């Protein structure tokens, strides 16, 4: 029998239509003393309006520097079941596809070695196993590995790469997001498991500019599929949409950010040279419009949450890169930027912050990239800038003013 707590506040959270996390904890608590004490401590947090977790200590498994987050209760005496309550990150399959057998294996394992509580999934994308004790970590990691699973990333490491559903079940994916994610994860196993960077490094890959994995907001390296060909139009299907009540002028033409679509009531025309590749028309007229090759990706760098310098969205560094296995150009570029970041980055400095500190030029030169207007919303406005000695010798105007 597990311990039973009176939880009047949490009980309130079992009401209502949305599935209740309290019910989940109670299910686990019925058979697992760790989950039972989690419930008790949480009720106390609700009452006192404060968290009761200590700052995490360092725990882990042999040979790895990450994958486990130490967690201890401030109220170990009152809730001994959560005295240790570590998180284990398990690297998810790309695309978040599972089979019932797989999930039962995870459940069996976690009932045996943990609290029975999970997150599907954590913010970075890992399966998150919530609540275990230090002694269970080695057996857990061993059994996972014997069954083909490995831990995810944590700390100042490459974090577990993740992606959208991609070509597995989406007609708009212009790159193989699952394969890229799997391939990069395998390529950089060392960087994933053994923190060796100034700070965390996240990679997220999405198949198109709709960005269903928030790549541009949540990844240091954002890989976003795009296309260079014209948008192919199936006029009959467009007319079908119109007949079914879509107001093509209002809903499609007027929303186009490039103002490059016209509709005469019968035919849709797109001036592709003004297309901004936003995907609005394509997604709203699903099946009627489609992007055509060349396919590739925009590569962007630097997104992060607010600490320390404020939130950033990723910045374009490659307007178009073809992405075909083995993705060598991409991998080389990643290694180059990591080398530079490792050399110059301060402790807890994200790569985007380092770029701001040392300048985009140095970063681009490290990556072997030429400046292009797609990298900026607009050129600089204040009239101060750097010149390198080598720039002074050049007379580019002799060429462009010819």
């Amino acid at each position, binding site marked *: 029998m597990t311990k039973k707590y009176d939880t009047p506040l949490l009980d309130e959270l079992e009401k209502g239509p949305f599935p209740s*996390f309290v019910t989940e904890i109670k299910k686990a608590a019925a058979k697992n003393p760790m989950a039972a004490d989690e419930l008790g401590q949480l009720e106390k947090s609700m009452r006192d*309006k404060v968290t009761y977790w200590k700052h995490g200590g360092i725990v882990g498994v042999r040979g790895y520097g990450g994958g486990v987050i130490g967690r201890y209760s401030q109220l170990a005496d009152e809730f001994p079941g959560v005295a240790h309550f570590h998180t284990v990150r398990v690297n998810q399959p790309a695309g978040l596809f*599972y089979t019932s057998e797989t999930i039962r294996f995870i459940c069996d394992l976690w009932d045996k070695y943990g609290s029975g509580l999970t997150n599907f999934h954590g913010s970075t994308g890992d399966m998150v196993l919530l609540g275990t004790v230090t002694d269970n970590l*080695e057996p857990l990691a061993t059994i996972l590995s014997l069954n083909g699973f490995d831990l995810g990333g944590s700390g100042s490491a490459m974090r577990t790469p993740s992606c959208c559903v991609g070509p597995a079940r989406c007609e708009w994916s212009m790159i193989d997001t699952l394969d890229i994610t799997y391939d990069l994860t395998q390529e950089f196993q060392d960087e994933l498991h053994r923190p060796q960077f100034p700070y965390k490094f996240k990679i997220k890959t999405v198949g198109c*500019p709709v960005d*269903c994995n928030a790549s541009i907001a*949540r990844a240091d390296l954002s890989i976003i599929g795009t296309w260079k060909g014209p948008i192919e139009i199936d006029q009959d299907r467009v007319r079908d949409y119109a007949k079914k009540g879509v107001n093509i002028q209002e809903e499609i033409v007027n929303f186009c950010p490039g103002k490059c679509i016209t509709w005469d009531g019968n035919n849709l025309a797109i001036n592709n040279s003004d297309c901004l590749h936003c995907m609005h028309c394509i*997604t709203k007229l699903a099946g009627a419009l489609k992007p055509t090759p060349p396919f590739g990706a925009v590569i962007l760098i630097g997104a992060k949450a607010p600490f320390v310098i404020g939130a950033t969205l990723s910045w374009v560094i490659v307007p178009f890169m073809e992405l075909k296995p083995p993705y060598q150009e991409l991998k080389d570029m990643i290694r180059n930027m990591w080398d530079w970041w490792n050399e110059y980055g301060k402790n807890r400095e994200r790569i985007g912050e380092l770029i701001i500190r040392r300048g985009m030029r140095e970063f681009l030169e490290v990556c072997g990239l030429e400046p292009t207007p797609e990298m900026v919303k607009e050129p600089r406005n204040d009239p101060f800038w750097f010149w390198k000695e080598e720039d002074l010798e050049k007379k580019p105007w002799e060429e462009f003013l010819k």
Partner: protein
Amino acid sequence: MGEIPEKFFIPDVVDVKQRKTDIGPPHYSNFLPPVIKKNYGNWKTHEILSPGLMVHIANSGDKIWTVRVASPRLLSTDTLREIADIADKYCDGYFRFTTRNNIEFLVSDESKVQPLIDELNAKKFMIGGIGSRVSNIVHTQGWIHCHSAAVDASALVKAIMDEFADYFTTKETPNKVRFAVACCTNMCGAVHCSDIAYVGIHRKLPRIDHDNFKNVCELPTTMAACPTAAITPDPAKKSIKINPEKCMYCGNCFSVCPALPIADPENDGVAIVVGGKVGNLRKPPMFSKLAVAYLPNNPPRWPEVVKATRKIFDAYIAGAKKHERVGEWIERIGWEKFFAVTGLPFTFQHIDDWTYAFKTFRTTTQFKWTK
């Protein structure tokens, strides 16, 4: 590399020396339904048949149906097994999660779609979330598992999702409405780019535990963690000083130094930010902006936060054009109108006063009269 065993096994006695390292995750192809494997990269289109059901159609003519249900993300193994059982019954065992933590059952046989929906309904699963409506809320750990949470996350998510449940299961919104919750300003998750999002905040100075500082904290790291350089050394105490004029209560110093607790039951609470988006559809991605600077922590259901959200949500429903996200709607009507139509007060906290503040000051006489 990337393989899974024919049959998973958990030995009774574990020999940790057998552990393999750096094998990475299993290859995704192990988990794809046959129809997906066959049509991988060859999808033609899809249709949303109802709020929780869509069908994808391949160039080959093959189809796969997806039934989506809500999940609180925090799942017990009991529930996971229940999902597995359902998947076995209707989906040959195949299912997946979305990046917003919904569960998706992948049905290859059309005749099993309705029975699956019936069983999910019978078992009180909440079906929906596809298309222009409220989807599941991405959120952080909160008091369940985090040492720096200024607010609980799961409870707030539950309260909000209960309030707007009909916009998940049935009703439509002008475009998708993405909620997000971050339990502190560290903001694990895309709170900074969501339609309506919540962030736990502090409003009082960290309390310096001078005795402990030297044992558990590192001076340079602690100083570097402060976004406003409010932290300076206090050599006499072998500790630090905090300039109260410069402290913005972000709590990042506590993230790196346990001797600087900042949680405060009476003064912590929730800020609401609005208008962010990550996709490139129509407008470029946008940051969320401050709508309400503070609402009190009022567990278990945070009624003030729910009420304020209702004001924003209803104004959006009433005012937005079809396809406009919250941020696009606000950009079109202007922030002065946003505050007018929602009735939310505009306070000093809304005016940026940090590093890039002046980039947000209005440098035009273009605005609308609201009073």
